[in-house]
């Protein structure tokens, strides 16, 4: 196998971005039907200050602690978005825009400070902006894979509950499902998916891992279960192939290649997809048109022959 040619560290990294892609593809379907695609962008940007603060506090680049920092920072961002939306006249998308820009700007400022301090540019924190999977070591990989599997399990085990929660919250509540618990769980796995991906994919592009596989899967199926399954496959493949290209290219930013691979799946789905793909819609339209014209011509002939 040609995979054997790659170093064992690369194999680990490939495994981790694949599992990350599966988790993000799975979670992305929940986010898609909660209509919160933009939220994933806001939260991933909002996680940056937490990464840098965690680094400044512990003084080393240990992914586990940086993830905790990122999660706290993203949760504060999520809370702020909710608070701004409910307590002022500002709409949610505006609140997300504010939080995204302010947190990201603050994060970049802190990053400059961190880069000038002890450890300097060697910190490797820059990789959190565009993503650098090759910079990951085995302990990082283990942290990421364990948390990603946790996300997948939460979605799979509660599949029926997520479905009714996403389709009809009022009815779900009437059935006795606690919306409060579901909301907390949703935010928890949402933030977890984002923060485990920021080292490999970067805060700028992480949202694409949630959005693109889910929307691509939508073009192939009529069932929510299949949508999640396909989205997970698209996400996993994008993660793996993107990392592979980035590794072969010797340290090219991983995030951008993962996104490009995911985007190519999307374009194929948009054109070829069997549910409302552009091509199938065109073919259906043409065949309908042909049938209609044929029938109207034959009925005209009937009229004439009479």
């Amino acid at each position: 196998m040609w995979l054997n040619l790659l170093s064992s560290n690369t194999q680990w990294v490939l495994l981790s971005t694949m599992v990350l892609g599966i988790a993000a593809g799975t979670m992305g379907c929940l986010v898609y039907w909660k209509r919160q695609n933009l939220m994933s962008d806001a939260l991933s940007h909002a996680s940056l200050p937490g990464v840098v603060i965690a680094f400044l506090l512990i003084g080393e680049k240990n992914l586990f602690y940086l993830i905790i920092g990122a999660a706290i920072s993203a949760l504060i961002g999520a809370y702020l978005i909710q608070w701004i939306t409910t307590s002022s006249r500002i709409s949610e998308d505006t609140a997300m825009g504010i939080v995204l820009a302010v947190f990201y700007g603050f994060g970049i400022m802190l990053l400059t400070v961190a880069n000038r301090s002890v450890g300097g540019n060697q910190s490797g924190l820059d990789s959190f902006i565009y993503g650098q999977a090759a910079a990951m070591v085995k302990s990082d990989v283990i942290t990421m894979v364990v948390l990603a599997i946790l996300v997948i399990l939460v979605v799979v085990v509660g599949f029926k509950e997520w479905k009714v929660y996403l389709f009809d919250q009022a009815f779900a509540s009437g059935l006795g499902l606690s919306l409060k618990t579901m909301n907390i769980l949703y935010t928890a796995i949402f933030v977890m998916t984002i923060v485990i991906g920021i080292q490999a994919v970067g805060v700028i592009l992480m949202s694409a891992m949630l959005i693109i596989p889910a929307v691509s899967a939508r073009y192939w199926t009529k069932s929510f279960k299949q949508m999640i399954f396909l989205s997970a496959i698209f996400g996993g493949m994008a993660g793996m192939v993107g990392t592979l290209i980035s590794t072969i290219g010797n340290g090219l930013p991983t995030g951008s290649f993962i996104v490009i691979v995911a985007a190519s799946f999307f374009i194929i789905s948009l054109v070829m997809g069997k549910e409302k793909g552009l091509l199938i819609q065109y073919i259906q339209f043409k065949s309908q048109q042909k049938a209609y014209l044929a029938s109207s011509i034959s009925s005209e002939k009937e009229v004439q022959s009479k």
Partner: protein
Amino acid sequence: MTNSIIKVEGLAVAYQKNTVLSDVNFEVKPGSLTGIVGPNGAGKSTLIKTMLGLHPALSGSVYFFGSPLSKVKSRIGYVPQRGSVDWDFPTDALDIVTMGLYGQIGWLKRPTRLHKEQAFNALKKMGMEDYAHKQISQLSGGQQQRVFLARALVQDADLYFMDEPLAGVDAATERAIMAILKELIADGKTVMVVHHDLQTVANYFDHVLLLNHTVIKHGETSKVFTKENIVQTYGGNMRWMGDE
């Protein structure tokens, strides 16, 4: 009235700055079919949602079967407004009806073939068996409403709340839904329906609750649903059906 199935006392509700409902008091008899009637913005949907804990109350209390909501949730069925959900969601009619059984199936457990059969029978009851495996996005408004009704039926609740089930549906669906409501009442269930069509109130409901930010009148339709009370509910310049 000691044998009331619903008891609402001093209920008040606000949306941001506006008080939508205040000093709402009423009791509902078991086995009754009540229409909640009032002008747009009178707080009809809000009343139901607040009673079911979907919207916080400023004050007041609501009892079902003599208990607070949390203890009797499984005995209450709710049919939300059709427009409150996203019908683009990728699933079929049978799957939506099966949701009504989730409480019985138990959390984190999967529905069995038996549950699917139960759901199918409910669809059949609503004349929707041919659409069981149809995408919900491809159903007409009336068909979607029937799916919602079927989902409520499988819950096998004792008390049902329905928010405008007859809004924007075709005549056949309206007849089908009314037949089911009468059947539910015949089975000893109690139903409260938010309704907008004054013309049909007298035919459809044995009780009526006239609402405009508070209860204007409540009681048997034959006694309460009078021109005088309706004018009081809708305001003076409302054209009564007979005047048109």
